[in-house]
Every structure is written in C-alpha cells, then in structure tokens.
C-alpha cells in the first residue's frame, strides 16, 4: 500500500471512531491502534490473573463459610475476567502463549497494586472495597471503548464486578463494628491500601504518556486525574459512614469545587513498585511462573490424550 492510501485509510478509520462506530477484528486498523490495544488489553488480563494471588492467600483462612464462598467466587471471577480479556486480545493477532511469555519474562506489566502483601483478613475487605472500587471506575467507561471485543468483554466484567466491591465493603463494615481489635485491623488495612488504590488510577495527567492518543481512540474516556477524583469523592463518605478514617491529613471537602481536595501522592513509591521493587513483585512472579511450569505436564497430557482419541476415531472410520 502506498503512503497516501494508508493516510486515507487512517482518515476513514479516525472518522469511524469519531462517529462512535465499533472496530471489529478483521477491520483495517492502524498498526499503532493494534499495538496499543494489545498492550493495554493484555496488561488488563495479566492484572486479573496476578490479582488472584493476594486474595488466594486468604481463601483457606476465611473466618466463615459465607466469607469463604464469596471469596472463592470472586477469585474465580478474576480468572474468568482474565480469560475474557486474553481471548479478546487474541483477536488482534497475538497468541495466548506470546502473552504469557511477556508476563513471565517481565516484559508486560500488570497493575502495580498487586505487588502489596495481604497481611490480615481485613485486607480482603480493603481490596474488594478500594481496589475493586477503583477498578470499576476505570472499567465502566471501557464498556464504550472503540474496539468491539474489548468493549464486550468489559460489559461482562463490569456486570460481575459490583458484587466484588460490595462483599469487600461488607467485610469492612463488620470489622469496623466489631471489637476494638477488629476495628483497628480494618483501619490498618485502609491505611495501607488507600494510597496504592489512588496510584492504581495511573500517573497524573501531565505525566501520563498515553492519555491523549487513548482518549482519541476512546480507549480511555476520562483522564487519570478525573477518575481519581471520582474515586475519592465516592469513597470518602463510605469510610465516614463506617467510622474509619482516610489516612490523608490534607483531605478536605472543597465547597467550591464540590469535590474533596487531597494530599500529595508519593509517586516515587509508585514508580519503584512499577519498576519491580515493590514488596511482593518477586513473590508474585515466582508464584505465577511456578504455577505455569508445574502445569506443563497437565497441558501436555491433555493434548496427547486428545490426539490419541482423534487418531482412534479416524482409524475406526477407515
């Protein structure tokens, strides 16, 4: 194709997106659109998969059967969400194995929040309430994103995710209304997860390299700072309601803006964790790669079994 032809196709493509038309897998798309989507969608899938690890840590120690079935169902949903997203990403021409390879070699990133440890049961509450809360704020606008398979996957994810946040908040309510030790445990979890949850919504707008292009492609419909403000405004009253204190001395309602002002985020910490120096980066990768390697013989055996069955069928047919 000549450069002029590509320019024309690009123009037509941008116009389709501006008209809110969806792009489907076999449609022509600029290479950069494809690559950006592969990067974001696979990171999203990886985050769901790694995101099972911090919570999986507490399944066997859930305090009641009610809590245990809920946590099991939530972790299973995350596996499912990872699978929806991986298969949606595969429609862009990357294989599942390539994506795993990128995750396992550290070439692909996942949400840095999962590199923090889950020290107490209250962390299950804080994760559901705050981490899933922030994730929902991030994900709801993606239900309208321009790439059809991504938008469809996100609709399923969002439908399922709201129970995740509610079960987390319920855990926090129970602890906050419990013994002084239980309330302290809930407060401690909020203290540890608050700032990482704010960081989870991404670097500030002036530092975010992908925002402008992603807004144009509707891969992003609100900026990181807008999403963060929305998260804070919605979450602070929920903390107040159950008598927990958001660990930010600068947090203050701003009557004029109709929003909360908040303190400085420690972006050095964020970048340290992104670069692999968070408390749990190594442990997460070790658990993930280990699980993949230990499962190799199962995958091979299943394939060998399928081939043997197929051969037998063909022999009988002759």
């Amino acid at each position: 194709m000549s450069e002029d032809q590509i320019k024309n196709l690009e123009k037509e493509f941008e116009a389709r997106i501006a008209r809110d038309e969806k792009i489907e897998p076999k449609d022509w798309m600029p290479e950069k659109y494809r690559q950006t989507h592969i990067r974001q969608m696979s990171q999203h899938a990886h985050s769901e998969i790694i995101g099972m690890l911090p919570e999986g840590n507490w399944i066997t120690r859930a305090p009641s059967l009610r809590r245990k079935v809920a946590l099991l169902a939530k972790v299973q949903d995350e596996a499912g969400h990872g699978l929806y997203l991986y298969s949606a990403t595969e429609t862009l021409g990357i294989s599942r194995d390539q994506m795993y390879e990128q995750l396992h070699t550290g070439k692909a990133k996942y949400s840095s929040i999962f590199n923090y440890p889950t020290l107490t049961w209250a962390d299950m509450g804080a994760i559901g309430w705050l981490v899933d809360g922030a994730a929902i704020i991030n994900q709801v606008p993606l239900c309208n994103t321009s790439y059809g398979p991504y938008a469809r996957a996100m609709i399923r994810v969002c439908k399922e995710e709201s129970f995740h946040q509610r079960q987390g908040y319920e855990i926090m309510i129970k602890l906050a209304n419990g013994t002084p030790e239980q309330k302290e445990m809930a407060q401690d979890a909020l203290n540890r997860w608050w700032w990482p949850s704010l960081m989870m919504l991404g670097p500030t707008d002036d530092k975010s390299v992908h925002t402008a292009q992603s807004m144009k492609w509707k891969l992003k419909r609100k900026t990181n700072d807008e999403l963060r403000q929305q998260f804070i405004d919605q979450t602070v009253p929920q903390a107040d309601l159950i008598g927990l204190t958001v660990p930010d001395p600068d947090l203050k309602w701003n009557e004029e803006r109709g929003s909360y002002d908040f303190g400085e985020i420690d972006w050095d910490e964020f970048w340290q964790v992104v670069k692999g120096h968070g408390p749990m980066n190594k442990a997460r990768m070790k658990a993930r790669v280990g699980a993949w390697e230990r499962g190799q013989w199962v995958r091979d055996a299943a394939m060998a079994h399928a081939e043997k069955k197929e051969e037998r069928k063909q022999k009988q047919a002759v």
Partner: protein
Amino acid sequence: MSTKNWPLWEIFVRSKNGLEHRHCGSLHASDAEMALENARDVYTRRNEGVSIWVVESKHITASNPENNGELFEPAQDKVYRHPTFYDLPDEVKHM
C-alpha cells in the same frame, strides 16, 4: 511429548429455550469435551445459559470486511423488499 498448544474454540450460549445460541467469546481447550467444560465455567457462572455449542475457531470461515461493499450494499437500494414501499388506501387498517 507434544508441545503443541491447546487450540482455540468459539463459544455459543443459548440463554434460555426459545432463544438462539449467541457467540459469547472464545477459550483454549485440548478437545471438544474440555472446551464444553471450560465454557461452562468461564461463560455460565451466573445462570447465563441452558445450552452451549463449541466450535474450533479454525473451522469458521468469516467474510472479509473489505468485501462489505459488494456483499451488503446491493441490499440497500431494494426498498421494494420492505412493506412500507407499497401504497395502501387509508381505509385499509390491517395489512
């Protein structure tokens, strides 16, 4: 030992009797039976289905969007295929 990867399957789910099977996504499985089992876990965790079809993706032939003009445009100027094309006297109420 085979190092082949599990093939990709397309999943279709009928949400209730009386409705058609609809494509809902894809997954990897070593054979059709496993594809069915995995589809049940991945796509019907909340009563989304009463029946599942699995088809190995390589067996699907898809039209090319580049040919959309010749495939679908001819239908656009055939308004006489729609009932509103035909004039009826006002007195005729139901037709």
